[in-house]
C-alpha cells in the first residue's frame, strides 16, 4: 500500500514537473535572449540562441527523467524476478 502511494505521489510530481519545466525553460531562453538582444543590439541572434538553449534544456530534462524512470522500472523488474530465478536455480541443483 505504501509502495502504491509512493508511485502515485512520484508519478504526479514527475508529470507536473516535466510539463512546466519544459515550458518555463523555453520561455526563459526566448525572453532572456530577446532581452539580451535589446541590450547589445544583436537582434535576432541571441533570441534564436536563447530559444534553442531553452528547447535543449527541455529535451535534457525529459531525457534525464526517462532514464531515471527506465532504471527504476528495470530495478523493480529484476527484484520481482529474483524469487522466480532462485526457484529455478534450486530446481537445477
Amino acid at each position, binding site marked *: 500500500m505504501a509502495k502504491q502511494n*509512493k508511485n502515485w505521489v512520484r508519478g504526479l*510530481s514527475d508529470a507536473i514537473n516535466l510539463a*512546466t519545466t519544459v515550458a*518555463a525553460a523555453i520561455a526563459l531562453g526566448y525572453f532572456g535572449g530577446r532581452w539580451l538582444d535589446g541590450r547589445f543590439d544583436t537582434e535576432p541572434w541571441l533570441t534564436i540562441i536563447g530559444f534553442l538553449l531553452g528547447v535543449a534544456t527541455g529535451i535534457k530534462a525529459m531525457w534525464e527523467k526517462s532514464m531515471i524512470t527506465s532504471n527504476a522500472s528495470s530495478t523493480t523488474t529484476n527484484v520481482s524476478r529474483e524469487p522466480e530465478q532462485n526457484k529455478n536455480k534450486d530446481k537445477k541443483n
Partner: protein
Amino acid sequence: MIFGMWDSPFFDLGPIPVDHLVFTEWVIIALIGIIAFTATRNMQLVPRGLQNAFEAIILWTYDFFTQLMDKEHVAKKWAPILTAFFLFILLSNYSGLIPGAAHVQGFQPPTSNWNVTMTLALITFCSVHVAGFSEHKGRYFKHFVSPGWAMLPLNLIEEIAHPLSLTVRLFGNIFGEEMVIAFLLFMAPFVIPSAIMGLSLLLGAIQAIVFTILSASYIAAATGEGH
C-alpha cells in the same frame, strides 16, 4: 480599482505603506497561528480534539514527504516549511471565495498577485539549494557541470526554470479564476458564478497540493543520490 487591483496602499505603518494583499496575508498568517496555538496550548499525552486532529495531520505529512523524498531525516527537516506552504497557499486561494474578496478594501486574495507567488517560489529555490548543500556539502555544486562543463548553461536554465514555473502556474491559475468569476459577476450575478466558485474549491486545493509536491520533489532531487 480594476478587479481588486488598488493603486494606493491600504494604510501606512509609520513610513511603510501596507498593501491590501499584505494585510490579507497577515490575517491568514494570524489565523493559522491562532489555530496552531490553540491546538498546542495544553498538550496531553493522550491527544483529544484539536490536538488529535493536528497530530494526525502532522503524522500524515511526515509520512507523505518521507515517501516522496526517500530520506527520512530530510523529510523531517523540510516537512514543516512544506506544510506551512500548503496551509498558506490553500487559505490564500480560498480567501478569494469569501464574498467581497477583491471588492472590499483591505481584502485581496494574495496568490492572485505574482509578487506573492514569486516570493514563495524564491523561498523554495533557496530551500532547495540549502538542502542540497547541507546534504552533499561541496559535492553539491558538481551537479551544475554534470555530465560535463558544456551542460552548464542548460543546467542553469533548468534551475531558474523551476521557480519561474512555480510562480507562473500558481499566479496564472488563481488570477485567471478571479478574472473569470469577476466577469461572470458582471454578466450574470449570483447563479452562474457560484458554479465556477464551486470549481474553484477544487482548483485552490489542487494548486496548493501541486506547489507543495513540486517543492518537495525539487528538494528530494537536490538531496538525492544522483548529486
